[in-house]
């Protein structure tokens, strides 16, 4: 995300000024004036209206918004699961990995099997799958649970498995749709630490959707505030609090207060319409 300090909505036509290294500066995800609507006639629902957003390589971007702001729709567009009605979505990455709020693990496979299937579908040769899967499970601290089945795991462990599976796609861009929304606070805090660690060690680009203001500030390099109905970018905040951060630190709390005020305003405006 380029630091645009005061602008609320980025103009669709504004080109990204190339800085220093051309390749580095080219955004890995480029969303240009995207509109997405579902249905037609009276039933027509506009989920996204003129959203423009650039995400740079290696950046951790949090999309923050209340329900109905089109966060999930936006992620689906970036993941290539859906097409925009108008506008462009350019993803300059080999793959995108996607993680949902529900771990969506395959119950007939073991933890390792779930990860191996992702490797298989990603074209990894058979002989390399098992060691790679175990390596990924070690990364998410599930090495001892490779043979367990999803239903034998706790919620946090299932979400870790889903994370390992998403990482198995070897995606440059990881899209996360409220992945920790259903977890208890303590598990969530620990997964924040682990995700931050993974992000800084792998250099992946992460687009993380959440409706939790503190979570967005805890994790993101920048926080994109989305307004609801229709979804559009209301504000972009750069988070300069040094890492590692704590979700209960005063800096996070101060920034959260500011953003929450703004969020209330855009939500209020949205419901007036």
């Amino acid at each position, binding site marked *: 995300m380029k630091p645009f300090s005061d602008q609320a909505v980025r103009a669709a036509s504004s080109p990204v000024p190339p800085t220093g290294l051309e390749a580095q500066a080219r955004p890995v995800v480029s969303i240009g004036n995207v509109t997405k609507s579902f249905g037609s006639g009276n039933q027509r629902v506009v989920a996204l209206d003129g959203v423009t957003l650039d995400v740079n390589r290696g950046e951790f971007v949090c999309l923050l918004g209340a329900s109905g702001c089109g966060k999930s729709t936006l992620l689906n567009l970036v993941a290539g699961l859906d097409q925009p009605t108008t506008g462009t979505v350019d993803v300059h990455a080999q793959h995108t990995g996607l993680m*949902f709020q529900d771990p969506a693990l*395959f119950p*007939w496979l073991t933890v390792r099997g779930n990860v191996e299937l992702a490797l298989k579908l990603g074209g990894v040769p058979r002989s390399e799958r098992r060691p790679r899967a175990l390596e990924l499970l070690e990364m998410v601290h599930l090495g*001892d*649970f490779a043979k367990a089945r999803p239903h*034998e795991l706790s919620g946090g462990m299932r979400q870790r498995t889903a994370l390992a599976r998403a990482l198995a796609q070897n995606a440059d861009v990881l899209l996360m749709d409220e992945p920790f929304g259903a977890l208890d606070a303590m*598990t969530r805090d620990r997964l924040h630490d682990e995700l931050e660690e993974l992000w800084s060690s792998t250099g992946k680009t992460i687009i993380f959707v959440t409706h939790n203001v503190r979570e967005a500030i805890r994790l993101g390099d920048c926080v994109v505030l989305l307004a609801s109905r229709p979804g559009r970018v209301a504000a972009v905040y750069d988070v300069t609090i040094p890492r590692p951060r704590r979700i209960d630190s005063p800096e996070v709390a101060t920034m959260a207060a500011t953003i929450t005020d703004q969020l209330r305003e855009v939500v209020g405006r949205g419901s007036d319409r």
Partner: protein
Amino acid sequence: MAVTADLEVIVPPTAAPADSRAKKLARRTWDATWPKLLAIAIVILAWQIVVWSHWKRETLIPSPFTVLDHLWQDRGDMTVSAWITLGRGIQGFLVAVIIGGVLGLAVARIPVLRAAIGSMITGLQTMPSVAWVPLAIILFRQGAGTVLFVVVLGAAPSIANGIINGIDNVPPLLLRAGRVLGARGISALRHVVIPAALPSVVGGLKQGWSFAWRSLLAAELIANLPGKIGIGQRLNFAATAIDYIGVFESMIVILIIGILVDSLLFGTADRAIRRRYGLIDAAAT
């Protein structure tokens, strides 16, 4: 497991020592067996009480011990007949699996077919299998075709329905997860749809077999099949010859085979899959 384990540890899949595992298995087998043995004992007792009560003459309702004694003496013939019937059943069932399988897949994937015959398949299931026998006799006379026709018509709808329900009920979220991982088309079918539908498919097979078994016995009882004598024909002959002990013998064999195949084969497969998929509470069983 790193430090992260402490807060959300559940019972890890530990490898129990071999001897305690064997003991556990013996224990579980006994736990599962003794209620059945008790039930059999109660049935035999009740039967004996009916005999003692002289409600009917002893020649009409023989004592269970007389029947079991005859069954033991006739075990050779009975086994041969049982295998003949079972062979016919398996043959018909396999054909039904192929026909029902293709039909189920086609109806599940092709909307026009679903609109045309989707509800008819369920309708077919309500048709009592005996009702097919006269038509089968007209079409195939007293041949092997009659048995096959009746068994397939009995079993195929259930099998097809199991597949249709299984595919219809694949959680959309899993399909989406599969698509994100790159499973599309055939690959999605193989890695997501078929495994997700498996519990329902096995349920359909289980039901299909029980329909096949009923249809088969109906065909053997009614159609005057030439050649090898199955257990249903044996029952028919015994009734015609007013051999009451023979009637009871055949009925017991039919019942035992039905129970064994249903509970041992399909029941075990069904439970194993449900446990594996986490569809039953492991702690409650």
